[in-house]
């Protein structure tokens, strides 16, 4: 048994401590918004936040994150009104949508570090893969989210 703090709630999960966080989130906790894409931390579909840091949950074990603050896409906002989600809707980013949970979590973290990112900083910070090719809109949406975040604060 390990206690995970996911989206502000403590969850007791009955998995071995070497289980990748991704599978505990999806199969045990039942939050399926975090996706499996590659299992080797290449694609970013499984990105969650540990504290404010973006982490590829396929490459970290339950034991390593016990007691830490984990945020998944489901915990980003109650009502899909996080500025990054709003920007994603405004720019109509998703196509198939499978990678978008990871893209959004990566973007949230990038904007924490760089509230006003340049195109180059977005290029360097956003390494998540998208096969549909939504990248031009991801770029636009991050700039838009940056503006929205400023309006909020």
């Amino acid at each position: 048994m390990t206690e995970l703090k996911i989206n502000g709630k403590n969850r007791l999960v009955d998995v071995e401590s070497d289980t990748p966080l991704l599978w505990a989130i999806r199969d045990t906790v039942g939050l399926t918004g975090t996706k499996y894409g590659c299992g080797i931390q290449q694609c970013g579909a499984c990105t969650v936040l540990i504290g404010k840091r973006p982490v590829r949950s396929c490459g970290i074990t339950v034991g390593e994150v016990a007691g830490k603050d984990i945020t998944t896409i489901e915990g980003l906002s109650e009502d899909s009104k996080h500025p990054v989600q709003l920007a994603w809707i405004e720019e109509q980013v998703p196509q198939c949508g499978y990678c978008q949970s990871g893209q959004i979590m990566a973007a949230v973290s990038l904007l924490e570090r760089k509230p006003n990112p340049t195109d180059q900083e977005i290029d360097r910070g956003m390494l998540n893969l998208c096969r549909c090719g939504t990248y031009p809109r991801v770029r636009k949406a991050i700039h838009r989210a940056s503006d929205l975040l400023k309006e909020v604060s």
Partner: protein
Amino acid sequence: MKNTNMNRRTFLKVTTVAGGGLLVGCSFSSPKLLSTPQASEEELGMWIRISTDNKITLIVPSSEMGQQAHTGQAMLVAEELEADWNSIKVVTAQVHPEYMISGDQDTGGSGSIRDWWDKLRQVGAGTREMLITAAARKWGVPVTECQAVNGRIQHTASGRSLSYGQLASAATKLSPPDSPTLKTPDQYRLLGKSLPKIHTPTKVNGVAEFGIDVRRPGMLFAAVSQSPVFGGQVKSYDEAAAKAVKGVEAVVPIPNGVAVVADSTWHAKQGLEALKPQFEGGDSAGLDSAKVTARLSTALDELGKVEVTAEKVLDVEYEMPYLHHATMEPMNCTAHVSTDSCKIWVPTQSQTETLKAAMEVTGFSEDQIQIHTTLLGGGFGRRLLPDFVTQAVTVSKVLQKPVQVVWSREEDTQHGYYRPTSMSRFQVGLGGDSKPVQWENQVAQPNFLAQIVPPLDWFNFDPLAVVASVHDYTIFPKHFYKVEGVEMTHTGVEFGVPVGPWRSPPNSLNVFYTESVMDELAHLAEIDPLDYRLKFLGESPKHRSVLEQVAKQAGWGNPLPEGHGHGIAINDWFGLDEDTSVVAEVAEVSVSKRGKLKVHRVDCVIDCGFAVNPDSVKAQLEGSIVMGMSAALFEQITLDDGRIAESNFDDYRIARLRDTPEINVSIVKSDENPTGAGEPGISPIVPAITNAIFAITGKRLRRMPIGRQKLV
């Protein structure tokens, strides 16, 4: 706008749902199909379900894989239905003949709007007319005084109105119209507008359900391993070791492989690791990429080289690699087989193939099998194949429990149905007017249609070698470039490596060839590549205008920074249709002094007839350009010792955000019928990039991908 399918009448059939709602079904060809007394309410609500609380569910024929078929098809119905767009929910239909075109229910060929343009509007219009009639009778006024507006029928003179939910029950008692009147374009309220995509809200909060997200009570998780050599068999495995892993419940053989079933994905994966399956034999045993290239080359030689005599002669060979679809969601399927039924939840592009696969494994009849299509995490043609369905149904049949099979990325990469590799030789002689007097072309490639249509193998005929090529086959329409002296031959080469449709099957190969060769000829003739192409488009005004428009948009001929160059290319899709989408692209590329390549900007113009949702069309073009660029820059599947050498995104590299150029898409305003937007844009970007590299460096790239080839 033409209504090409109006001769095929739509017969509507309606009934009341329990609680008083309206169910609308219809038959396009036979009024009998839905008028059987045994037809269930489910069957009758095949297209539209209106509940008394005004919720409208549209059941659409196409799978949603990111191309926004759900949004577009819902717009077609909702426009004519005059529905409140905000009250609409969309689901993909169960398998049924009503949703089939030419006997198949599948999503591909950029056809979701093109093929359903008339039919879905008729379904909406017929239902609207019934709701109007129901209201008119209730009020005792002529139907001509009533109007459908945003989910309500209004009688303007008296100021009365009723909602669709209030009228649904009465509407079911009416005879449906045979030939409902469709709106004229000036009456459109939704069509032609960039409405937000219907699934966007659930795709930004993790709620959207893909195949891998399906959860059923008591469901088990399976991990699979298939023979790395194609067609090989399992030789041995350590079942006891697998079963010793916590949570592992069973080891079940599947075609060419084995599945480990457990209480979680992770336990299944660990069980598979402990199982250590060994394999033997297989069709591709001993094959490597050098042998593939050598055999293609030999096949070209066997077709015979031709003597070309002209003042200026081009004599070149091109080669394209196998490519993988690499959908972000790996192949998966959930099945629950019991003694007399089989339920399937699957991200599939082909409900027909899913049904066939399930029938074959279970021996059940069609009516014992239910197929629920989830959202697809990418398709691109890979999900037209049902191999993963066969696996899930096989395992569930043994265990009689719900089982979800999810492939690892490694299985997914090494067990694809790849875009065929191909080699093409061109010998072209130019005459005094700089146009070809002789155009000899030989092609050697695996013939994937022959897997589906065996006679193509007997006649060694591959339509995919021909379509989108400049050819002299009389059974196919001519290429849009009108060229004299063409002689084309081709041959199939079988390697035992599965091949299949990859986003625009013939064009993804042939447009690279044709548009590279046109560029080579322009250079040989010392004519600007745009001007040279225009010489061959005298009979193709649509192509001419799209090409000219993209050149203008990109600033073709204007000076560029040092080390930058423009490349241009054009494509149409699908070459066998009377009306095709035409798309042209210009890439602005730079090559540094050290040979570093960057794609800076891509301009794109498409004429795809009437754009039902312009923003969706734009998104498809942007995505196609990124995916095509990715293939050009990085992608190839190679073989080593009979197996695929690549295994994951670390060695099958695809484009990232940092590789992505500025993309400007323009849509030609048109009132012609829609012709498709999902595929046309992917092919021209490849030659547009390589033609730009030539313009900068003088180096012609005749083998893809560009990869690490030296550019300077």
